[in-house]
């Protein structure tokens, strides 16, 4: 057990399950269920649960002791990766200069409308008030969403789950969603939508679609953070 508490275990596990996912994705000719990130997540969680059973430990405790030290090291690199989205943004300065009003309006109005739709869906599916409050801040990145969630009476663990699953869903189903909703005829809207729903990972996906989509997704990540900071507490005060 003590062998597993060094960061090497977490780093190694992260990389191996992701490579497994990449291999499966290639072998299955890009079947969405074998999307590397999704495979890595499911495989990693399964392995940790099995190992915890093997060492007869509590799963959460085992995760914190064995995986987290290495996982945190890999996770840290999301910081410079997020900063790097300034580059696609800068490369498409022309689009931003031309459409900044529409971009801001689209993000502000779009998110506010989405919030009400999310509340409606949550109520239809019978979520508790805590559950609904946890769902509201999910458009922002985790660092913004978690404190807002606790401030409006949500459960920050559920919000974290929502933020993470958002990204995984967009990365795995993005292609299909963009085609199904006929989004790609308008690259600006598509990019903003992908950035809002999939955060940084959504931006990476948007960048694969094109430079305009990528830069718009990067803007969305920045602006949505501020919008969630400002709008979500207001909306929650209206509702609860």
């Amino acid at each position, binding site marked *: 057990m003590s062998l597993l508490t060094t960061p090497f275990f977490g780093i190694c596990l992260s990389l191996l399950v992701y490579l497994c996912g990449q291999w499966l994705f290639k072998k299955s000719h890009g079947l969405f269920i074998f999307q590397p990130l999704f495979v890595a997540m499911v495989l990693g969680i399964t392995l940790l649960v099995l190992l915890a059973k093997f060492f007869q430990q509590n*799963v959460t405790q085992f995760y914190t002791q064995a995986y987290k030290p290495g996982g945190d090291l890999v996770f840290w690199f999301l910081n410079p990766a997020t900063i790097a989205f300034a580059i696609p943004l800068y490369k498409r300065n022309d689009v931003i200069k031309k459409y900044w009003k529409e971009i801001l309006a689209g993000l502000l109005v779009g998110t506010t409308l989405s919030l009400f739709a999310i509340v409606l869906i949550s109520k239809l599916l019978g979520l508790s008030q805590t559950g609904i409050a946890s*769902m509201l801040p999910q458009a922002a990145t985790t660092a*913004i969403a978690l404190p807002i969630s606790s401030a409006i009476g949500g459960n920050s663990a559920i919000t974290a789950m929502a933020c993470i699953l958002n*990204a995984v869903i967009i990365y795995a189903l993005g292609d299909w969603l963009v085609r199904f909703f006929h989004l790609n005829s308008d690259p600006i809207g598509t990019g903003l939508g992908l950035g809002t*729903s999939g955060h940084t990972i959504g931006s990476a996906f948007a960048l694969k679609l094109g430079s305009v989509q990528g830069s718009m997704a990067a803007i969305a990540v*920045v602006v949505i953070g501020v919008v969630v900071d*400002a709008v979500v507490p207001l909306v929650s005060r209206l509702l609860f």
Partner: protein
Amino acid sequence: MNKTHVEQKKGAAAAPLLVQMGIYTTILFVSNLISGLFPKSFPVPAPVIGMILLYVLLSAHLLKLEWVDSLGAFLISIIGFLFVPSGISLTASLDVMRTAGLQLILVIICSTIILLVVTAYTTRTFIWLRKAHLEKHKFVHQPLAIKHRIHVKGEE
């Protein structure tokens, strides 16, 4: 769309990797300091500030694109892997999922789709409004254009 002037300037040699790392870590350090200035009720995380900072530095031509471009492209290309620990961190919330899992996951899937589609179509509407507005103005200033259009339509 057309490639911009920025992308056409390729060919300049990329800065050494360590220099690029230095730039990224310096920006992160400074943005972390700035992030601490925001009140707890209005959190703005360091990476988001860093993105704005790097964008401003590039736009002001204080940083050259080739000083940050290749490392940034690399980091973005492996972002799926960098997100693996976040995905695996859900191990810690397996208990929450066990109690209300299916319901929550359904709501999260719906919310993701709502955020994507509503934002995309709202923006599309605003852009359409702008175009409609511009066209209208064009017609006021150029009445001949309308005549021409009607004429062409009539011929069909």
